[in-house]
């Protein structure tokens, strides 16, 4: 390092740094870069002198206002003690409790003269009543404990500190997820708290075999990330693969699970999402029970599920809770709507531009009459209207809720109506665009809806340039591509291509629960049977069983 710095002409800094190293650590030196500071802080261990420890912490953190340090003397020996916590991270009652214990309790503790470590041990053994206590040995540990809601007790004469869990960060309540609503089904959604999210899942799957592996990602953000799976059900190779891909991430910060998604995706160029993200604990639980793996990230309500396949995107939780007929019907509608949301504008443009003969004569006349006087070619018309619609939607999402309705009025009434009256667009185009928009809203997964939107524009252009041939060209290209991609090694279009007829029971169909005996085949295939076969409800099933049992007895005799 020295010669490198010399080369770079950073002589002064090197000298300073060396000085800093000699004197212990000088964090007041502003010329240290973030990675240098981080590295230095990591190597710092606590010393026996309380005064020095506190000075060190103040220097490293810049003594921020939210770092509360309470210094006092305790015990018969009047040992110097400091209690540290970060404002906003802790529950005041718990904290007061600790404070009281330290103040009063320490007098009861018979410890040797001036023995900080002994006092700490005594605290730990007898006095502290907090849920979790751990030792911290370095400044880095100490700070991590503070940011996780711990209060840290430092004692003069002891080179370790005690961290007691007093955490109570104010999160929002568990509410209905805003992006994935359902009519029938549980109303709780994930929130930003890591352990609340885990608990929401664990409440649904109470087996001890629901395993959680925790990692910390991001050198600066130090975000907690959990890999959740059912041991013995999820395939080991899959879990290993997820573990490997997630722990391979070396970055400074993970602010949302989308960061992780980007890092672990199989195919970076895929328009379609290759990991499934959801805000609903019941969906995650359902996926885990199929042998998938969930990745829970701190500070975000979005949980990733891998591997993902295409049909998952068009399944809504309601399908499983409603009766079989309704579930199936809704799914078929959704599949059709999804197809329409991608292809409809493209096909419309193609037919109007190239294949007028495909339309019935009267319909064609109607459309032609409506189109009369419109100055744009139909391609431009549809493209512009779609673009306008995207504009409205994006504006609607970004606007504060109070102004939201204004956008819909301006968009629907002023723009739509006025554009038709002014003869800038023809009414059929507006019908097609709004139909497409409605169809695209039926896709339960938001990010998939975005992928569909992107494709729609391509299909409009293809249809406008090359007619139905172009649309077919594009559709085949998309199909080839989606058939070729995989999510964590599992084919993306799974039950459709490769064809697995067995899994069709949960594709467009949603058959009775008592017929869903097997788990999806491709996912590792560990214990494919999920329930006993033949549980169809029948009248008089008990009598039949009795009869059988009776027969059995007779045969025994």
């Amino acid at each position, binding site marked *: 390092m020295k010669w490198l710095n010399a080369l770079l002409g950073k002589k002064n800094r090197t000298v300073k740094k060396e000085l800093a190293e000699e004197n212990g650590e000088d964090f007041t030196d502003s010329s240290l870069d973030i990675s240098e500071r981080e590295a230095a802080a990591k190597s710092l261990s606590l010393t026996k002198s309380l005064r020095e420890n506190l000075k060190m912490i103040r220097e490293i953190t810049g003594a921020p206002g939210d770092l509360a340090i309470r210094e006092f003397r305790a015990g018969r020996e009047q040992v110097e003690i400091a209690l540290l916590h970060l404002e906003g991270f802790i529950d005041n009652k718990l904290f007061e409790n600790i404070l009281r214990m330290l103040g009063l309790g320490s007098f009861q503790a018979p410890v040797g003269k001036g023995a900080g470590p002994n006092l700490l041990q005594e605290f730990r053994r007898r006095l502290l009543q907090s849920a979790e206590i751990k030792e911290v040995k370095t400044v880095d540990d100490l700070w991590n404990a503070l940011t996780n809601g711990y209060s840290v007790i430092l004692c003069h004469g002891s080179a370790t500190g005690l961290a007691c869990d007093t955490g109570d960060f104010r999160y929002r309540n568990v509410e209905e997820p805003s992006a994935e609503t359902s009519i029938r089904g549980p109303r709780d959604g994930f929130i930003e708290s890591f352990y609340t999210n885990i608990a929401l899942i664990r409440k649904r799957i109470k087996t001890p075999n629901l395993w959680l592996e925790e990692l910390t990602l991001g050198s600066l953000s130090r975000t907690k990330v959990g890999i959740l799976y059912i041991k013995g059900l999820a395939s080991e190779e899959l879990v290993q693969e997820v573990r490997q891909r997630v722990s391979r991430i070396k970055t400074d910060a993970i602010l949302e699970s989308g960061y992780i998604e980007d890092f672990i995706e199989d195919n970076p160029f895929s328009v379609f999402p290759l990991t499934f993200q959801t805000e609903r604990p019941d969906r995650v639980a359902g996926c885990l029970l199929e042998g998938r793996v969930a990745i829970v990230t701190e500070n975000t309500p979005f949980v990733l599920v891998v591997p993902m396949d295409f049909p998952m995107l068009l399944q809504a939780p309601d399908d499983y809770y409603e009766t079989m007929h309704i579930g199936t019907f809704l799914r078929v509608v959704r599949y059709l709507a999804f197809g329409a949301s991608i292809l409809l504008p493209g096909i419309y443009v193609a037919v109007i531009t190239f294949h007028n*003969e*495909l339309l*019935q004569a009267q319909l064609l006349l109607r459309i032609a009459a409506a189109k009369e006087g419109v100055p744009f070619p139909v391609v431009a018309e549809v493209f512009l209207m779609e673009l306008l619609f995207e504009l409205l939607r994006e504006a609607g999402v970004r606007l504060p809720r109070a102004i939201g309705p204004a956008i819909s009025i301006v968009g629907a009434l002023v723009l739509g109506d006025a554009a038709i009256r002014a003869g800038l667009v023809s009414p059929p185009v507006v019908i097609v665009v709004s139909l497409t928009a409605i169809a695209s809203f039926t896709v339960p997964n938001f990010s998939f809806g975005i992928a569909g939107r992107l494709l729609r524009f391509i299909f409009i252009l293809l249809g406008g340039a090359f007619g139905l041939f172009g649309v077919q*060209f594009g559709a*085949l290209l998309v*199909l080839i591509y989606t*058939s070729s991609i995989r999510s964590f090694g599992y084919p993306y279009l799974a039950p459709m*291509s*490769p*064809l697995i007829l067995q899994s069709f029971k949960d594709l467009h169909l949603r058959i009775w629960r008592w017929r869903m005996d097997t788990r999806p085949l491709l996912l590792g295939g560990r214990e494919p049977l999920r329930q006993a076969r033949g549980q169809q409800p029948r009248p008089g099933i008990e009598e039949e069983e009795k009869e059988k049992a009776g027969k059995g007895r007779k045969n025994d005799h």
Partner: protein
Amino acid sequence: MTTEKIHNRQLVFMLFMIRSTVTIATLPVLTTGTAEQDAWLSAIVSLPATLLTILLIGGLAVKFPEETVIEYSRKLLGKTGGTIISFFFLWTFLYTAATEVRIYAELLNTGLFPLTPLIFLVSSMVLLAAVAAVLGIETIARTADALIFFYIFFITASLLGAVKAFDHINLQPVLSRGFGPVFSSALTPAALGNQSLVLGILVPTLTTPRKAVTSAVLAALLSGTVLILSSITVVGVLGPKIGSSSIFPFFLMTRAIEISRFIERIEALVVIAWGMGIFINLAVFLYCGARGVSQIAKIHDYRPLIGPMAVLWVILSVHTYDDLLDLVKFFQPQIFFPYSMTTTILPYLLLWAAYLIRHAGRGEKKYIKKRRIKPG
């Protein structure tokens, strides 16, 4: 490079789409020979011939479940002989594919896009096939998996749509001129059995290669059924005279369909179905061709070959035939049948002969050994 594997079911689907697309699109049973109203009989007659071709090709492939035809032909006939024979097959892949894409382009040109330059249609289809071939046979097979439902649905829909216009008078008299014309019409569809040459390349990629013949026969039976049904329907709707004088009789038939006042002109469905079929067809042929060439040239990966081959293919497809009539002439039985014989059947007979000579001897030895052991 990981070895790609496809399921036997996927082979059935691919072969089915390959076999049925061209035979339905051009309906050679009707357009090539003189069978006219007895076209469906020709379709039936051509079926055993196709099966025989499959047995010939698939039977040998099953004997070498780990190798492609390129590799075992070298084993059987020596290095030079094997390579020469392989060139026949590779040529067939290239040429058949070029012809098929041309047929599809001509169909689009006559039917839906009269003004679009042929080369554009050809090259975009080839581009699709090339993308699929680069992504590998697994991807092609999976795409076939996904497309098969649409394919069958569209074909069935157009056949059912024709029921209303069906007139059984058109099919009579049966066999008025004896079996001669029936056989003349069966020659070209039977010779189209050379499409089964892909088995030589695809069998080693199968999950269960020993069932390859069963799968291929199943595919041939399915596509044969579709061929028989469609020839009956087309003749029944159009009549033998119009049918045999047109170039794309099936397409013509679907144009005539009018189910109700609101549902008419369903030919787009058929064109889309053929688009799917042709796409699978081209992708498989291109893959097989590239695999073959890479094995002859001892190149580890076939993917770099696909680009140049695709370009060559477009050129071949556009320049081999002057126009549609030229194409039709190629499919005349007196030209196409001998052509297919020399490029497919003869080489395979040669391979079989070599196989029997080499392995019959060995088999006998084994037998003798066994007998010797027994008394001892």
